């Protein structure tokens, strides 16, 4: 429009918008473009979900619970997901139990304790770089350290190795999101706390963390979701890419985790997608539905937890 080069005083702007009521062409065009962008991304997502659901729903309704409760089998009609579900949930527990406290601790130290020196900034920049390292590299690390070097502790190709690998993989993201949440806490809250004589630890524990917690948990939810969908690092860190594996009868949960082989849902999806039998095409779609459902459940649980804390 012709008036764009004119100086924009507030009065000018108001006067113009009143004169041109309903004729904000650029604004309308922009909102249309933005809507198209939104619809495109939504459309892709919906197409994907519709494709997967239409391909896999037959298996879920036809097989029912047995599809989730049966172990892997090379026979499509018998193949189930229980080992993958056990593995994926187990890996999630590892990620939360290992990466959450370490990540949060590192973030608190970086934000609240570490002096703002060149070294601190270097470490900070490095953590950001680590978050961008391809996951397969962490898989190699997991193979070299957890599977091979520390196999006396992890048991080799076990859930422990996979869980630790994923925990290390998400640690940088955990630190970054937690640190940003802590940084976002207004400094007035800290100063007020110091003002009434609280120590640094009391300030962090009673004032900074409670305010930062919802954002920290949001970061944790995203982190867990990331770990849940990873397959490449697990392939290297010993997850079984297989149509069939079985643990000896009668092993305890402890042995199952520390001694036995494991797999995860994304690995099963990958494996089924390359089988020759057509039935496995449907099974693959059904497994993706279960994977998405489980991921939503885990996320929903974390979000509920966060909301409870927020409402406190």
């Amino acid at each position: 429009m012709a008036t764009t080069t004119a100086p924009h005083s507030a009065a000018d702007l108001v006067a113009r918008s009143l004169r041109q009521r309903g004729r904000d062409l650029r604004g309308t065009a922009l909102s249309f473009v933005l809507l198209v962008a939104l619809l495109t991304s939504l459309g892709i997502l919906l197409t994907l979900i519709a494709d997967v659901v239409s391909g896999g729903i037959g298996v879920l309704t036809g097989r029912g619970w047995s599809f989730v409760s049966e172990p892997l089998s090379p026979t499509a009609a018998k193949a189930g997901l229980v080992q993958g579900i056990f593995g994926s949930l187990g890996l999630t527990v590892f990620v939360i139990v290992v990466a959450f406290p370490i990540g949060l601790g590192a973030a608190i130290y970086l934000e609240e304790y570490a002096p703002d020196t060149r070294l601190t900034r270097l470490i900070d920049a490095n953590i950001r770089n680590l978050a961008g390292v391809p996951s397969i590299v962490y898989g190699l690390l997991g193979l070299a350290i957890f599977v091979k070097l520390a196999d006396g502790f992890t048991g080799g190709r076990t859930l422990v190795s996979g869980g630790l690998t994923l925990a290390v993989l998400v640690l940088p993201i955990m630190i970054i999101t937690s640190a940003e949440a802590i940084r976002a806490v207004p400094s007035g809250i800290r100063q007020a706390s110091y003002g009434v004589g609280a120590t640094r630890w009391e300030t962090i524990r009673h004032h900074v963390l409670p305010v930062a917690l919802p954002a920290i948990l949001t970061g944790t939810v995203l982190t867990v979701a990331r770990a849940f969908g990873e397959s490449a690092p697990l392939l290297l860190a010993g997850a079984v890419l297989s149509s069939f594996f079985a643990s000896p009868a009668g092993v305890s949960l402890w042995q199952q985790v520390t001694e036995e082989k494991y797999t995860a849902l994304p690995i099963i999806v990958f494996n089924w997608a390359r089988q020759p039998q057509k039935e496995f095409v449907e099974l693959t779609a059904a497994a993706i539905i279960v994977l998405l459902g489980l991921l939503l459940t885990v996320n929903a649980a974390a979000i509920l937890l966060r909301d409870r804390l927020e409402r406190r």
Partner: protein
Amino acid sequence: MKRTSTAKLILGIVAFALVAAACGDGDSTDGPTTTAASPERGASGRIEVSGSSTVEPITALVAEDFAAANPGVGISVEGPGTGDGFARFCAGETDVSDASRAIRDSEVEECAANGIPFFELHIATDGLSVLTSPENDAVSCLDFNDLYALLGPESEGFDTWADADAIAAELGAGNAPYPDAPLVVTAPGEESGTYDTFVEFVIEDIAGERGQEEATRADYEASGNDNVIVNGISANPTSLGWVGFAFFAENADVLKAIDIDGGDGCVTPTAETIASFQYPLSRPLFIYVNTDKAAAKPELAAFIDFYLSDGGLASVSEAGYVELPAADIDDTRAAWDGR
């Protein structure tokens, strides 16, 4: 007030972890461990199998039946590929290695260097199927010279079948000239044993004579997923590509297998022609067993016994491959008994 918030956080995390662990516990007792240790269960111990993804379905079927009869045995069957399988086998990590080709000299040396004695058991036969779309009426048979002209290193950049006419004429290929139709190639990538076999059977000799690289053309749609290859071939009316026989047999309604002329006339890939090796692209499938471990681990010996029984070998056709003729089965069993 503020105290409770921290406590709640920790409590929440622990509860979450416990719930997840409890779910896992329930799952695992529902699953493989329901058949709790019975007093007179069969063998116990662990068996690890790795190797070819082509052979994996056969071994997995055998393993499933074996595990059902021997709940005390933990067994895993993986299929990362023949080469990867031998790497782990020769490092002593696995008991059995599935293979869609015979072990290479370099791999034999690797095993020897690590003191891993092994023996080879021929358990089934596969035929590389050269495929096109059922709509492609113009092509029904190709010989090795044709395949070299269309897929060899010198065919790089050919967009139509007719582009290969010149090389075909040079080689004296039996089925040229080809139709003037788009040539769309979808086939396994270089990491695959199926690719290796194709190069070895079809390309190697001719490329050697002509001083060319022993490889296929590089400009084709490559995939490690055979189903992607099947889709690629069936989607185009004048396509060309190759996969293992099991993938053709499962998708025979949307694919057409091209007959192969290995010098004795055109042969259609069928269970019979593959089993008799009359089909020129037939290849044996093997399992390799670690001799020391077979002697030391009764559960491994029991597993191989079961594999080579009639019940075990029935898995071969169940998995879509071609069973051995009776004489070859006897040879394989004799090799195992004479270990």
